[in-house]
């Protein structure tokens, strides 16, 4: 039994109440409020925001407008007032390349992460909701995709695809990136499936589609957000890895591509180290931003993980377990029922 809040107190104390059962029971505003009050989330979001501004308004940060054009400046200039971080061996301004290079990773993160999350939700929720044989089939496929080593597959896929355009890269990332989330969504949806408020909606006479979209999904919102952040992180890292290996579009201006160029032009050894260092920092910061926000969401949805506070009532603890441990979501593999 949980603590009951004072019935008559108008402002409900946030702390001890709110059964954390399966974690995701907060209202939407609750998620947002918790997000705002989480330090990791703030730091992560701050980093993300700066990069976002840089990607959207690059001209605020540099006067060079076409940074990839070669031969604009003298090659291999050392950092100076004119060229904050020097120029590349192809005569490009490194800082400008970096500024404009923020755009593509962000697009990849948001689009690939978003699409992968959508697929995860669709697959996971429908598996859980359909149940029976369809569920068996869907979760088998999910598990297969989950087990197949992704990055080699990404490499092989993008090599097969021949032409490394942004679209193909995103497609490849989505194809390989949805399964983890789908598994989590399924687990969460399964634990929700027989929750009384969904049955209550059914008994109320709601349609199936309404229940899934308007009753089920909103309750999964923080898992979905966490998933999106995870998928975005995965996309950023995988895309940068691909580009670094030279499997991206070499003409694109993107941090991964920059690193690839820096690597192939021996930037570290030939006095243009910033050419490699800046994009490395960029990718790291973007990755860390997503990771911090993601972890913050873990804390939000599982209050036990929060820095100071502790988990409450023992009876609740037993109800809390199924959805809370992400690692165990995969644990059962195909055998989870």
């Amino acid at each position: 039994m949980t603590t009951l809040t004072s019935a008559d107190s108008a402002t409900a104390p946030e702390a001890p109440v709110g059964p954390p059962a399966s974690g995701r029971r907060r209202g939407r505003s609750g998620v947002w409020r918790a997000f705002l009050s989480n330090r990791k989330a703030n730091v992560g979001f701050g980093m993300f925001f700066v990069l976002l501004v840089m990607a959207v308004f690059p001209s605020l940060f540099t006067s060079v407008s076409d940074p990839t054009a070669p031969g604009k400046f003298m090659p291999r200039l050392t950092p100076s007032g004119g060229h904050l971080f020097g120029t590349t061996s192809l005569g490009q301004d490194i800082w400008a390349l970096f500024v404009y290079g923020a755009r593509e990773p962000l697009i990849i993160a948001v689009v690939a992460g978003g699409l992968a999350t959508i697929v995860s939700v669709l697959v996971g929720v429908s598996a859980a909701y359909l149940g029976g044989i369809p569920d068996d089939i869907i979760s088998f496929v999910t598990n297969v995709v989950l087990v197949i080593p992704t990055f080699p597959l990404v490499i092989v896929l993008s090599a097969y695809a021949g032409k490394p355009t942004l679209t193909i890269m995103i497609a490849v990332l989505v194809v390989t990136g949805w399964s983890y989330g789908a598994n989590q969504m399924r687990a969460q949806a399964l634990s929700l499936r027989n929750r009384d408020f969904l049955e209550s909606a059914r008994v109320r006479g709601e349609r199936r589609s309404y229940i899934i979209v308007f009753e089920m999904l909103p309750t999964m919102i923080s898992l979905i957000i966490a998933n999106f952040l995870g998928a975005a992180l995965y996309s950023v890292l995988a895309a940068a890895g691909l580009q670094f290996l030279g499997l991206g579009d070499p003409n694109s201006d993107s941090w991964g591509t920059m690193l690839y160029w820096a690597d192939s032009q021996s930037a570290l050894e030939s006095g243009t180290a910033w050419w490699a260092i800046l994009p490395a920092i960029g990718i790291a910061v973007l990755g860390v931003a997503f990771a911090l926000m993601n972890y913050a969401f873990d804390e939000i949805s599982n209050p036990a993980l929060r820095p100071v506070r502790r988990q409450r009532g023992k009876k609740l603890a037993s109800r809390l377990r199924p959805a809370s441990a992400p690692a165990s979501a995969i644990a059962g593999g195909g055998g989870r029922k």
Partner: protein
Amino acid sequence: MSEPMTVLNSDREILLEVRDLRVEYATQNGPVEAVAGVDLTLAKGEFLGVVGESGCGKSTMLFGIAQLLNPPATVSGGEVLFKGENLVAMTAKSLNALRWRDFSVVMQSAMNALNPVHSIGRQFKDAIKAHARWPESQIKARSAEVLELVGIDPVHLKSFPHQLSGGMRQRAMIAMALLFTPDLIVMDEPTSALDVVAQRSLMAQIKELQKQLGFAVIFVTHDMSLVSHFSDRLMVMYAGQVVELGGTRAVFDAPAHPYSRGLLDAFPSIRGEVKRLTGIPGAPPNLGRPPSGCRFHPRCPVAMERCSVDVPELYLVDSVQARCLLHEPAAVSVEVES
């Protein structure tokens, strides 16, 4: 605060004495005092029932006594004298030496309180090994003995918790608590996960064992009727405080505190006439911001004006004590003699 409480059977030796125990939870909104100054004396072989609404601090008090609080809970004041030694001030090492030999704990849900990955026997062994160097055979023999005592076939020593039914697990827990025949067993709602029938039979068994082995019991529950037939004394808690303490029958027959009365009135009975019951209006207070004065006054049907101002203490009313200004002695606060 008043002096240590009356011991009903004053002829018996005092086993446990709790003085002004306070436990706080550190939360983001400041400390929450979940146990606010509990005093209590327990004699050898006595059965004390502790009742109260959910969240009133029963478990916290229990763990405060047993020194099993997890952060962010801490004992913020008071002392717990067990056989004359203050457990609160004791080092972890000497505390560990006392544990299980002298007092053991039975927890609410045996499913959670038994380690799911070890066999029952292994868990028994763990407990024994922490306190004694017995040969393997003696460990086995003792384990089997206590299991039989609670009516479980010793073959189940090899079983894992999930292979036992709820009732069996609960019994196994009790058996484990008996390994060293301690003087005190603290029980936190050991039956609330069970069915009425199972509940009843387990209660009977606990009582039986207690009579047989002579240990004292502190039994926490939120179901008043459950302890009504088994406990010698009853302690009613409300919002972290003891509101009434006395012989079980006495409390049931003539509850002195309006809260106890309310609780009793909220119990429909399967016998006697069906009359409309009222229950207690409102909900328990938020311990982070307890009401001023008497903590029960916002829900009290007989509250007076001064109840929201003056803080009541435990006053002796006949054979029981109650924390209610109604019973405040006219002039001086009660002097307690045993």
